[in-house]
C-alpha cells in the first residue's frame, strides 16, 4: 500500500486509475477491470427492474434485462476476466431472478460459466438469486481490495462499492453536462450503476458526505469512448 503512488497515478493513462495501490481500468461503459487480477467488477445491474415496476402498474418496456445483459456480454468478451464480481443490487428485487425470461437466464448462465462469479448481496437483493450459478457473498476481500455493496461510513482503504449510483455534472460555456461516473480519492472507489434503467445521484449529494478525502476526490465521468477525470472544484450539484 502506497499512498503517494495511489495519488500520482490517478491520471497515468486516460482510463487507468490506482486504488489502494492496485491498477484498474475505468471502462467508459461503466465497469472496472483489474488487469493484474483478471478481475471484472460491475455494480447495480438492477436486472428485471422493468418487470418490478410493472408489478406496480408502470408498464415500462420489458427490455431492460436484455439490454443490460447485452452490454455486459460485450465487456466480458473484451476483457475475458477469470473473476467477475457483481457488486450488489444485481436484481431489482428478491423475485427478479425467478421472473427473468428463460432466454435471458440462458444468456446469463453462459456468461457465468467458466469463471469465478460472485454475487455480492445488495439491499435490493439480500438473498442469493434463485437457481443461478455463482457464489453469493456479503463482501469479498481480494489482495488489498474489499468489495461490498454499500460503502462503509468510516474510510476503508481499498474498498470498492456501488449502491449510490454516482453521477457528476459540469457546466461549461453555459451548458450543463451530466453523466454517470466513478468517484474515488485514490483510496476507495464507488462505481456507477450499470443497469439500463438505473438513475443516478450527484456525487455532491449529502449521501456521499464523509466518504472521500476532498482534496483528492475525482469524478471519472463516462464519455462515449473514454472517461473524463474531473476534479471536485469543477463539479456542480443537481
Amino acid at each position, binding site marked *: 500500500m502506497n499512498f503517494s503512488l495511489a495519488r500520482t497515478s490517478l*491520471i497515468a493513462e486516460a482510463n487507468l486509475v490506482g486504488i489502494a495501490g492496485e491498477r484498474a481500468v475505468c471502462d467508459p461503459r461503466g465497469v472496472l477491470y483489474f488487469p493484474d487480477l483478471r478481475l471484472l467488477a460491475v455494480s447495480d445491474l438492477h436486472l428485471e*427492474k422493468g*418487470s418490478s*415496476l*410493472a*408489478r406496480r*402498474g*408502470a*408498464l*415500462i*418496456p*420489458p*427490455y*431492460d434485462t*436484455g*439490454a443490460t445483459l447485452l452490454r455486459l456480454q460485450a465487456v466480458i468478451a473484451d476483457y475475458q476476466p477469470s473473476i467477475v464480481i457483481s457488486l450488489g443490487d444485481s436484481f431489482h428485487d428478491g423475485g427478479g431472478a425467478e421472473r427473468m*425470461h428463460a432466454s435471458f437466464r440462458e444468456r446469463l448462465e453462459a456468461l457465468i460459466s467458466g469463471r469465478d462469479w460472485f454475487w455480492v448481496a445488495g439491499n435490493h437483493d439480500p438473498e442469493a438469486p434463485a437457481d443461478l450459478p455463482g457464489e453469493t457473498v456479503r463482501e469479498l476481500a481480494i489482495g488489498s481490495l474489499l468489495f461490498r455493496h454499500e460503502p462503509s461510513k468510516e474510510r476503508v482503504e481499498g474498498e470498492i462499492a456501488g449502491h*449510490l*449510483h454516482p*453521477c457528476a*455534472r*459540469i*457546466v*461549461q*460555456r*453555459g*451548458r*450543463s*453536462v451530466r*453523466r454517470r461516473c466513478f468517484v474515488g480519492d485514490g483510496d476507495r472507489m464507488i462505481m456507477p*450503476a450499470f443497469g*439500463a*434503467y*438505473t*438513475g*443516478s*445521484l*450527484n456525487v455532491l*449529494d449529502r449521501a456521499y458526505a464523509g466518504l472521500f478525502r476532498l482534496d483528492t476526490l475525482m469524478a471519472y*465521468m463516462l*464519455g*462515449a469512448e473514454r472517461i*473524463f*477525470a*474531473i*476534479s471536485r472544484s*469543477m463539479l*456542480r*450539484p*443537481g
Partner: protein
Amino acid sequence: MTEQPRLAEHNATVALPEPFIRWFGEKGWSPRAHQIELLARAQGGQSVLLIAPTGAGKTLAGFLPSLTELANRPRRKPGQAHRGIHTLYISPLKALAVDIERNLGKPVEEIGLPVTIETRTGDTPAHKRQRQKLVPPDILLTTPEQLALLIAAPDARRFFEDLRYVVLDELHSLVTSKRGHLLALGLARLRSYVPGLQTIGLSATVAEPDELRRWLVGQNPPGAMAGLITVAGGAKPDITILDSEQHVPWSGHSARYAIPEIYEAIKRHRTTLLFVNTRSQAELLFQELWRANEDSLPIALHHGSLDVGQRRRVEKAMGENALRAIVATSTLDLGIDWGDVDLVVHVGAPKGASRLAQRIGRANHRMDEPSKAILIPANRFEVLECRAALDANYLGAQDTPPLITGALDVLSQHVLGVACGAPFDADYLFEEVRSAAPYAALARDTFDRVVDFVATGGYALKNYERYARIRKTVGGLWRVSHPRVAQQYRLNVGTIVEMPELNVRYVRQGRGMAGRGGPVLGKIEEYFAETLRPGDNFLFAGKVLRFEGIRENECVVSNGTGANIIVPSYAGGKFPLSTYLADQVRGMLADSDRWQALPEQVADWLRLQKEKSVLPKRGDLLVETFPRGNRHYMVAYPFEGRLAHQTLGMLLTRRLERANARPLGFVATDYSLAVWALDDMAALFKARKPSLAALFDEDMLGDDLEAWLNDSWMLKRTFRTCAVIAGLIEKRFPGQEKSGRQVTVSADLIYDVLRSHEPDHILLQATRTDASAGLLDVSRLAEMLSRVRGRIMHKHLEQISPLAVPIMLEIGKESVNGGANESLLMEAADLVEEAMGQR
C-alpha cells in the same frame, strides 16, 4: 359559407321569456341579432358555432339557450331527487371559468333566475367537489382536464344524465392542441350518455370554420356539421407601426431602441397593454421600462412563470384600473376582460396575423369603437413582418393553424379513463371514439393496439400479461384490474406536461444557502437553473436576483446587483412565423412598390440588397455564398420559421459533411439559415458535387431525417411528453424530487431501451408523428422544398450581403447541439489535467 342572422324572421318565433325581455329593457339594451339567432337555432335542436369578435356579447349568447330553458323549468319539490348538471361550460383557462362565474352571476341575479352556477377547477377544494357530486349545480364551469376526471368517475353516467348543453369557450384555441383531442373524446363520451346533447362553440375568427363545425358534433354520419353564425368584425382597428427616429437594429429581440417612444405612448394613454412573445422578453421590457419610468407610473408584469398570488394581484389591480401599463405574454391572450385598456403595444413581431388580431381586440373591449395598437418591430426583418401582419389584419385574412389528427397518447389516456368510469365494450368504444372529429379516420387495428398498450404496454415481448391494468372479462367487457389503477389515472390526467421546474425561493442577502423561509417568486425551468453558478445575477419577476444554489426542488435566490445580468431563456413560448405571414413577407421583398409603406431605413436596406446581391421572386429561394475570415458561408432565405429552418440546417450539414465540405455549424432564425464550412461550398455547387438543387432535394426528408431524428434530443423530449400523457410514466410532482434521482426511471433511459428493442412500438410512432409536426415542422419544410424545386437562385458574392447581416450577427449567440457535449467534457477534463501539471 356564412349564414347571416335574419333577425326579423326569428323575432316572432323565438321564445325569449318575459323576465329576460324586461331585464334587457331595464338595462336599456336590446338583444343582439346573433344572440336571438343562436337561441332560435338551439331551441330548434341544433348545435351551433358562433364566430364573433371580442365585445360582441358572445358569452351571454352562449348561455341564453340554457338560461331560458332553466327559467321555464319547474322548481324542484322538497324530497325530489337532485337534478344533474344542465349545462357544462368548458374553457381553456381556469381564470376564464372564474371570470365567467362573476359575469354570468350578475344577469342571473338581476333577472331573478333560480339557477345555480359553480366552478370546478384544479383549485376547487375536495369537500366542494364532493358536494358537487351529490348536489350538482345547474351550470358547471370547468376545464377539459376536469371533464376527463368526471368521466373517469364511477358515477359519471348518472352525473351527466340530465345534461342539455355544452358551451365551449375560446374553441379556436382549444382545438389546436392535445387538450382539444382529450376534450373531443370527452364530448363523444357525453354524447353516448345523452344522445340529444347540444353543443355551442364560441370562437374568434378562424381560417376554416368548417373544421370547428365538424368538431362540435358527432361524426356519424361523417362530415356532419354544427350550424354557423358569424358576426362581422367591429370597427377597424387603428394600428400603426412605430416609425422610430432611432436606428432599427439588424438583429435581436429586445426592442431596447424604442423604449423612450414606448414610454411616451404609455404616458399619453389611460391603460396600455404591452404584449411580447416570450417570458424573457417580458422580463427585459419590464426592466427597461422601469429604468425609463421617471414619473413612477404604476407598471406591472404578468407572465405564466410568476407566482399565482402575484398574478392575481396584477389582475385585480388591472380590473380596478389602478395600472397604467401591463407587460404580458400569452397568459393574457384569451378573452378575459379586465379594465379599460385604450392602447395595445405589441413588442416584437406578432408571428401570426390571427394572433395579432386577437391581442389587439383587447383594447377598447367594445365592438363599435376602433381598437388602437402600435407595433414595435425589434429588428429589420420584423419590420417587414409587422407590415405584412398589418396588411393581413386589414384584409381580415386568417392564419390559424390547421387541426391535426387525434394523438394516440391522448387516446390511450382516454381509454384508461373510460375503463376507470365503467367497463367498456371495445367495438362500441371504437365507434364512439370515431365520432370525435379528430379521430374520425382512426383505423381499427390502431385502436386495438392502443387498447393493448393500455392493458399491458403493447410490447412484442408478452411479459406483462399478469400485470395488466385493464382486462377483458368473460362477458367481453374491458375492466380495470385493480382500484389502484384508477387512483394512478386520476393523478396523471391531462395533456399539459411541464418541463421540470424549480420554485424560485427568495432569501435575505448574505445568508446564502443557509437562508430559509422567504417568499416563492414563481417557477423557473430546471435546465436553466442548472446552467447558473452561485453568484450569477439573473432577471426574474421584474427583479435582479442572485443565484445562491439549488436545494431539493427550489432555486434559492437573494437580491442581486446590476452587473452581468442573465435573462432566463424558456423553452416553448416561441411561436414560429405563420405560413401565411411568411408568404406575405416574401411577397413584400419581391415587390419594390410596396417598400414605400416601410420606414425609410428599412427600404434603403432592401435597395442596397438589390444593388449588392439580388432579391428573390416571391416563389423563389435565394441562396447566397460568400467567404469571410477563413470560412465559407451559405445563407438561405426560406422564411419558413425557426423550427423548419433548424431541421433544414441539421439535414443540410449532414449532407455537406458527406460531400466533404467540412461544415462547422449553422444558425437558424425565423427568416433565414446560415451554414459555415471550411471548404468553399460555391465551388462544390459549381462542380455539381453536389449541385445546389441536389443539396436541397426533398429526398433529405427520407433516410437522413430518420437517422438524425433517432438521436435527436428533440425526439427524447417529445417522447417524455407522450409517455406521460399515455400513462407510461408518471408526472413529476413537487416534493417527489426528494426521493432522489436514483429511484425513478427517466424517460430518456426508457426511450433508449425501447428504440433499440422495439422501434415500431406505438408510443415511438406517436412520438415521431408529434415531433414531425411540432418541434421539427417537417411538413412545412417538405412543402417548401417541393415549392422551390427548380426555383433556387444561387448568388455567389465576394462579401456578406445586406440581407445576410442579421443572421450573421446571430452566429455565436447560439450553439449547435450534437457531439458537442463530449467536447465540453473534454475541455473540462483538459483544464484539470493542465492544472495538475500533467501536460
